[in-house]
């Protein structure tokens, strides 16, 4: 199929490369570095008073494992997501990080209801309705408000559809504008994401990876969503293009007040984009906090190990730095370890960790951690901080002398929290 709009390679005019079509403004007048720096963004700031746009409570997703053979009995479950709770503030962004297989992508697909959760509830946009239990028909209006950006810009766009058809499809499905208004809206969207609006007639293969990711973003923006689930939106892109797309997402977030659930394994990108971060391990959230607490005062040994594993540019010429080494691999989510799921690889693990699962305990105004020995790196306590709260002794056996205390399970943050130093509930 030949496309009339596709410019042939013109050997006499080498200046026309695909790269320069990317942003019209750069083509007309070249930016100096100072101007270019103005277009760059500092990391997104946290708005502590924002209402939650999405509230997830005790969400679970178990995938059945079937036996082979004629009668396919269910012989177990992959506990991909096992009881996670969090909130995404309006216009804010929550980062979801963890290693492959920790359930972060499953969480994204649960929120967009591409999967039906096994348990738990989700509230969207202040409504009392539980979207975890809605039927497909009931979900249709929700799909306008919650959209998704996918990782791979090569497989997430239909190669047989033009860009106009891809970006305009949501408009037709939801019947929001009359047919003759679809094209102007598509062109407007292409311009918003920094593509040439005249390229609506082209096919995805005529665009580079970064441009395709912009098409995917334009499609997600078509219906003015309130929440975007971005599943590894930049990890398939080249380094220089990554920064372009992150800046674009920051622009869009400010302009349209969109909340993001930003799923990524790149801790540096998440640090830049998300004022709040949740760390997942084997289907559970092990630590969730604001940026400062996670990156500078992490209390969970897994978060600390993850951060110390990230190679550091400033290390140039000095060789590899000392780091917390995690031995072995992540255990199978079909048969996860008892108690704390991280204990098989944890340098701090003791008897209690195998017996009692640590609750996700709020230890600061915006900081929750699930560890019996929570503490900053090198300053982990010798005795479990949770034993008094859970009514168990130091080994994790039930202790009749101690009465368990209620532990908040609110997906957001409470006004009161457990202070690790004084071992008491305190408030601001």
């Amino acid at each position, binding site marked *: 199929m030949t496309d009339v709009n596709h410019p042939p390679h013109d050997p006499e005019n080498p200046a026309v490369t695909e790269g320069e079509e990317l942003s019209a403004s750069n083509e007309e007048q070249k930016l100096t570095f100072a101007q270019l720096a103005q277009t760059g963004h500092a990391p997104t700031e946290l708005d502590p008073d924002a209402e939650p746009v999405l509230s997830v409570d005790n969400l679970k997703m178990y995938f059945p494992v079937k036996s082979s053979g004629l009668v396919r009995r269910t012989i177990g479950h992959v506990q991909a997501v096992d009881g996670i709770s969090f909130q995404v503030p309006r216009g804010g962004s929550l980062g979801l990080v963890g290693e492959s297989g920790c359930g972060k992508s499953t969480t994204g697909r649960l929120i967009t209801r591409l999967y039906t959760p096994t348990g738990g509830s989700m509230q969207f946009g202040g409504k009392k309705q539980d979207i975890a239990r809605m039927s497909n028909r009931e979900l249709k209006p929700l799909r306008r408000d919650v959209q998704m950006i996918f990782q791979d810009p090569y497989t997430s766009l239909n190669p047989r559809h033009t860009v106009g058809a891809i970006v305009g499809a949501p408009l037709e499905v939801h019947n929001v504008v009359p047919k003759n208004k679809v094209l102007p809206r598509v062109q407007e969207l292409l311009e918003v994401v920094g593509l040439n609006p005249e390229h609506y007639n082209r096919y995805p293969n005529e665009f580079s990876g970064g441009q395709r990711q912009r098409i995917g973003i334009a499609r997600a923006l078509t219906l003015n969503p309130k929440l975007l689930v971005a599943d590894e939106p930049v990890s398939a892109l080249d380094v220089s293009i990554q920064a372009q797309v992150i800046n674009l997402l920051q622009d869009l977030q400010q302009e349209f007040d969109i909340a993001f659930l930003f799923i990524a394994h790149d801790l540096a990108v998440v640090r830049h984009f998300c004022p709040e971060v949740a760390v997942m391990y084997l289907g559970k959230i092990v630590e969730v906090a604001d940026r400062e607490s996670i990156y500078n005062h992490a209390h969970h040994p897994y978060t600390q190990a993850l951060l110390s*594993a990230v190679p*550091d540019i400033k290390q140039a010429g000095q060789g590899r730095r000392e780091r917390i080494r995690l031995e072995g691999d992540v255990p199978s989510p079909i048969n996860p370890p008892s108690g704390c799921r991280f204990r098989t690889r944890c340098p701090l693990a003791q008897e209690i960790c195998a017996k009692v699962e640590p609750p996700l305990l709020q230890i600061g105004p915006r900081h929750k951690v699930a560890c019996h020995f929570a503490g900053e790196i090198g300053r982990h306590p010798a005795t479990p901080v949770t034993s008094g709260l859970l009514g168990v002794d130091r080994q994790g056996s039930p202790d009749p002398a101690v009465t368990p205390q209620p532990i908040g399970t609110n997906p957001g943050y409470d006004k009161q929290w457990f202070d690790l130093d004084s071992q008491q509930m305190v408030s601001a």
Partner: protein
Amino acid sequence: MSDPFLVVEDLTVKFPTEDGLVNAVTDLSYTVEQGKTLGIVGESGSGKSVSSMAVLGLHDMRTARITGSIKVGGQEVVGLGESKLRKLRGKEVAMIFQDALAALHPFYKVGSQLAEAYLVHHPKASKREARRKAIEMLDRVGIPQPDRRVDDFPHQFSGGMRQRAMIAMGLINDPKLLIADEPTTALDVTVQAQILDLLQDLQREFNSAVIIITHDLGVIAEMADDILVMYGGRGVEKGPAKEVLTRPQMPYTWGLLSSVPDVHGDTASKLVPIPGNPPSLLDPPSGCAFHPRCAHVDKVAGNKCVTELPPLTAGPTGAGHLNRCHLADPVGVFETEVLPVIAPELLEES
């Protein structure tokens, strides 16, 4: 200082395609000494993988047009016959690929694939001997219960273990040069840390030369002694790792540094992307290949960036640090303009 083990000089690789001639690598020169690590950084299509595949003679000689010289331990590789190349591969030079699942054969046991690599270069060895060697190597790269895992198939290994198995396969004949092409890109950070530690331990043990190809500046910073930055098929900056990463002299390297957020740095630093896309290798831009995306073109008089290709020459800090840029004072521009934007905390310290 011994003679460098690998000497690449004026290497040019072109591929004829239906759309025209792809200039994948142009006039590339570098050297690697025993016991040292060279890091090659660049984006997709910058020629970093193509150039290192040429070191092993992996390009199809019927289609690829390779000129220049590659000397491995004094022996010329360009134009070498297939049977001689086979003696070189694995024994002198070994390669670790990015995708370990695709690089291991799914039908054969991990152990027999390792043993095969050994038997190729030790034709007199018995099968039992090769198997023992395979177990020994798996143990060396830290695979638990190697005498049992040697009979596993690749799909029974986790991602990190497959990468370890591939490293074991690469090192089974004690090669003097190891080329690791994005060895950890597909892995999680904690596994990546394990693999990088392993590579470094093994390099010390075998005193081999290592080329590590990656787009991750953090990995390069921790692993490499020297860095070669590639753009549009050419080397654009070359020097000691610390020099290149702390006082880079080429606007493309500045752009790379300002495009990646830093997990350990100041939260106030901005992310400044490089505008535009990487160049087409079918039809590279005139003059400096980076000029369409460079924000400092206006500082060079006479439109030289567009008309004239800058040579890769020693920069203001000495002969060890080369750059391919027309700017008269790249260090000054970097320190006064670029650094305050990308790393304000460094200025306060100094």
